[in-house]
């Protein structure tokens, strides 16, 4: 697909045309608390390394009402759950970073696949055109290249935007993206070479990541039973920060709430770091200590998701968990431990 360019002077006009007939969400907010929000097309922020939280909450909100009932016997269908369905409007998001877009594409395979389609996710996800913004100077916390991505990665995006001086270059990736850009005044330009050079420089600035192939090669049970997990989990607090900030964590909990007039079935983010996540009705908990819970998170990211999604790692290298973790548990260090040849058995 071709590349386009928008001159700096035409940027506001460009964003206005993106917003025609759709909601436009762009990076907003001060300092390091950047978030993707609906606002005027003249207030788009470019000087952010990444949004504070991952964009997954736009498609998979922390609390989402799925269905509800009323208990008014004088009206029809009292006490009958009604699907609240999909009320999403068409939208375009500008400024998703490639790591987060890749994260969305991983979650999308969880919520929409040949066995199951989640209507709540689908409604929002399929109606949204995702315009990414490439990272010319990745932040020190980032390691997308080490996880098989790129600061200029295209996975999960319809259009990839990148800065060319103070102008904005655009590379369309999907037909939907192509159609969107054609509606704007962006002019076609040959930027393939420029894009390639920028990407090479950005990847180089991240340094060489560790080769994680040993994890792919190792048997699942070998990784699972490796004795390092006790030490790896020792300083974990079992809070849920890593999972709430992770662009690919997608576990949820279904809850019913009632009030005087009726009730709601909602789903809320849940976290595998919590004791409550796995406790059974009997009181038995298959993940009784933090060792099992920490192992679950890293095995899920680095082994289970790759097994289920043709080798794509469940970590996209956005670095949020590394920085946000109150005790600095670093997934890169854990991955290194998982790569180590197994210690000879004690038996």
């Amino acid at each position, binding site marked *: 697909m071709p590349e386009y360019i928008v001159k700096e002077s035409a940027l506001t006009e460009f964003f206005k045309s993106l917003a025609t007939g759709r909601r436009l969400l762009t990076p907003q907010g001060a300092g390091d608390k950047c978030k993707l929000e609906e606002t005027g097309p003249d207030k788009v922020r470019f000087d952010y390394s990444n949004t504070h939280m991952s964009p997954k909450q736009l498609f998979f909100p922390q609390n989402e009402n799925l269905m509800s009932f*009323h208990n008014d016997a004088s009206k029809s269908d009292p006490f009958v759950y009604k699907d609240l*369905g999909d009320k999403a409007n068409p939208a375009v998001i500008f400024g998703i970073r490639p790591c987060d877009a890749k994260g969305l594409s991983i979650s999308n395979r969880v919520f929409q696949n040949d066995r199951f389609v989640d209507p709540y996710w689908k409604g929002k996800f399929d109606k949204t055109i995702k315009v990414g913004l490439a990272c010319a100077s990745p932040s020190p916390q980032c390691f997308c290249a080490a996880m098989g991505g790129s600061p200029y990665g295209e996975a999960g995006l319809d259009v990839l935007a990148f800065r060319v001086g103070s102008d904005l270059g655009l590379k369309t990736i999907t037909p939907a993206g192509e159609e969107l850009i054609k509606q704007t005044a962006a002019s076609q330009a040959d930027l393939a070479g420029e894009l390639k050079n920028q990407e090479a420089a950005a990847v180089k600035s991240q340094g060489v990541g560790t080769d994680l192939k040993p994890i792919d090669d190792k048997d699942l049970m070998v990784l699972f039973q490796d004795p390092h997990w006790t030490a790896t989990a020792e300083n974990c607090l079992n809070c849920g920060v890593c999972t709430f900030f992770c662009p690919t964590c997608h576990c949820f909990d279904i809850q019913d709430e009632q*009030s005087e*007039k009726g009730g709601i079935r909602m789903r809320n983010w849940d976290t595998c770091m919590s004791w409550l996540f796995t406790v059974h009705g009997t009181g038995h908990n298959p993940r009784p200590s933090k060792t099992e819970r920490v192992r679950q998170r890293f095995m899920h990211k680095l082994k289970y998701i790759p097994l289920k999604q043709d080798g794509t790692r469940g970590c996209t290298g956005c670095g949020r968990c590394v920085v946000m973790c109150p005790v600095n548990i670093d997934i890169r260090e854990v991955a290194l431990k998982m790569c180590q040849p197994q210690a000879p058995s004690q038996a």
Partner: protein
Amino acid sequence: MSDFEPKIVAFFCNWCTYGAADLAGVSRLDYPPNFRVVRLPCTGRLNPKFIMEAFKRGADGVWISGCHPGDCHYIAGNYHARRKFVLMHQLLESIGVEPNRLRFSWISSAEANKFQAMARDVVENVKACGPNTTFRKEDLKLGLAEVA
């Protein structure tokens, strides 16, 4: 506001205030019927969660009453409770619950008249505060109109 009838959750100790309420009843002392009583074995049993839950679910006031200090059936239950009450009272007042919504009293099982006076006072004061709109869980947004 004058026709506002508050809902008040009352936590009474089994050994004293609950008896006082009984005595007030059999003595035909009338008092306003705005409170629902939860009987506790001792005010020491009162968990702060109970107060929060009552307010959260829409109570306009909470009234806690137990034995006079020194008269606890379990020797020291209400002494321990008293320290907790200080904290709960201070904390809830500090975060903006009107002081008259959360009331504490000591009423022995013989003090039917004190019970009557206190019940009237509690209800009157909560009435003056008006309905509890800030320290309660909002009604669920069922969203059924949109999908009907």
